């Protein structure tokens, strides 16, 4: 499904990703963990196609070269990124935004557009999944939403877009335990044999709710260790110190609620 080889990313003269390799099979959930500044978010944005990076290496999804594509083409190819900081868009109605997104992808794929009435049903199901009130759909995208509402809105979008590959960037940050439960429930219900996920997190906490098939440790722009979910538990106990060559001025892993 997703093949990442020797991926590099830099901003100006500053290298951030330094040759990242990763293979994600269909239906698999991979967690990427790492200390602050290790390149986790850059990896997510490199997959989604953000401007401003010098990119090297190869990334293919189902054989298609993602790095050649604009962000909207990647979305049409099945990439969905859940933002760590979802963007507020005043004046653009959430429902209209969602339907425009779905229909843009359908148009690109040569499929018929979905009408307002049919779309409402799709949206309402997704709303139920993330326990959102109906007025959510008629507010401006993320404008004035609480941190938890924004993250739920990300999962709502994912449920509506039905991506092939979901990349969730620090979806747990800023969430209290109830919101975390709702978000995790949404993510788990969207797991399936045809959908792969990359869950990026600093803390092991999220992985209590979303059990990954594989865990990778990203340090200084490279994956330095891979294992099953027990690797996350090891990190919980011992921190990232064993994987880096210098002292970490990092927050403790356990009990943190960033």
């Amino acid at each position, binding site marked *: 499904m997703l093949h990442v080889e020797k991926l590099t990313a830099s901003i100006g003269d500053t290298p951030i990703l330094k040759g990242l390799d990763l293979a994600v099979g269909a239906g698999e959930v991979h967690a990427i963990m790492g200390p602050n500044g290790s390149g986790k978010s850059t990896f997510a944005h490199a997959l*989604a*196609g*953000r*401007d401003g990076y010098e990119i090297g290496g190869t990334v293919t999804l189902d054989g298609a070269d993602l790095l050649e594509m*604009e*962000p*909207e083409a*990647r*979305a*049409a190819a099945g*990439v*969905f*990124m859940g*933002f760590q900081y*979802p*963007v*507020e*868009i*005043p*004046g*653009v*109605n959430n429902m*209209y*935004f969602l339907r*425009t*997104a*779905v229909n*843009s*992808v359908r148009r*690109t794929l040569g499929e018929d557009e979905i009408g307002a009435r049919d779309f409402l049903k799709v949206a309402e199901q997704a709303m139920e999944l993330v326990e959102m009130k109906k007025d959510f759909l008629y507010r*401006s995208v993320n404008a004035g939403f609480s941190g938890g509402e924004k993250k739920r809105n990300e999962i709502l*979008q994912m449920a509506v*877009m039905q991506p092939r590959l979901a990349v969730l960037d620090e979806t747990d940050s800023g969430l209290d335990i109830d919101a975390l439960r709702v978000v995790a429930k949404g993510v788990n219900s969207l797991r399936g044999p045809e959908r792969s996920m990359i869950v990026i997190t600093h803390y092991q906490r999220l992985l209590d709710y979303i059990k990954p098939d594989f865990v990778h440790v990203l340090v200084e722009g490279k994956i330095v260790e891979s294992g099953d979910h027990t690797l996350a538990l090891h990190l919980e106990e011992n921190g990232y110190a064993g994987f880096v060559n210098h002292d970490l001025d990092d927050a403790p892993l356990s009990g943190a609620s960033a």
Partner: protein
Amino acid sequence: MSLGILPSRSAALEQVDSLSLPTKRDEAWRYAPHKTLGQLTFGPAASTDAALADIDSQIPQLDGPLLVVVNGVVDAGRSRLGALPDGVSLVSLADAADEAADVLERVHEEADDAFSVINRAYGTGGAVIQISGQQSETIHIVDVAVPGAEQNASSSRVVIDVAAGSSAVIVETRIGSGDSFGGSNVRTEISLAADASLEHIILQDLPATQIHLGRVDVVQAANSTLRARLFNLGSDYGRVAYYVHLTDEGAHADLSGLYFGFGEQTLDQQITVVHGAPNCTSRQSYRGVLDDSSTGVWNGGVDVRVGADGTDSEQSNDNLLLSRKAEINTMPRLEILADEVSCQHGATVGQLDEEALYYMRSRGIPAEEASRLLINGFADQMMDDLESDTVRAWITERLGHANV
């Protein structure tokens, strides 16, 4: 005109030959195209026999009373003045002269400029609207400029009187015909009696070859409410100046607008609100979107006179520049001569939010459509409180996007 020449008109006619046009040194006219203003030719209004294209496609289709003015002359055939609601008097200015001489002779505190003198001299056509009671039908005044060979610019007046405790919604749509140079000079005079309420909307959409000069003088009595909405969209130079005088306690003026410029357009809004009595409130909230080489001007003033204690005013002007050649000149002005006053103002100038564009594109929305959604989102907020869905639909259609 049955009354003959009004005193103010004869005085204006005497002045009109010796007028000096505004220059760059006049703050309120600083960004006007002075050379082309001098090429406008005005004269006494005369019925045009020029074939007028269908204007229905250019204006919102409102159901209520309609008065159409073409080149300063009321076009009875295109107007719809039968069966007016009780409490609405809507007559051609020429016919109103006898009974409404005092209304037509109203003197405004704000000084005349060359174009308001020209308007008084030649603006013998237009509408006189007198309202009593709560009116639910929207009244529509349409001004059409059709540049002619003899004179390329027209003048007309709209006089609005809202009686104590009464309310109405009045839309003025200003358009033009043809693709030659010319323009219109429209003066609106509004008087709101105590507890009266008016929503007054200007839709300025002349062709890009023409110039529009609009001036609105408002006098507000105690506890009256004005909601002035300007959609300044058309013309090579499209200007609307508001002078609002809050003369009695508790009056409230709420002015807002949207200007949306393309090509070489200059869209100019000049606003002065005078707080002349205690405990009045005013709001000015304008947004601009400027593309290509267009220029926006927002010059918004609040003038708090001696004794206008307890004044509460807010001004905001937010702009979106879509091109490196686009320009905005934003100038909030405040003069405060009273105590216990709260006056806030703010202005912003920005470009499309790159982060929001990326966010939308990451959801599959193509870059161009994402930009359009952002621009529309910014602009649409200025239409949220319009009473008329028909007007809102006309604006969204005019701005090239379907209503969400």
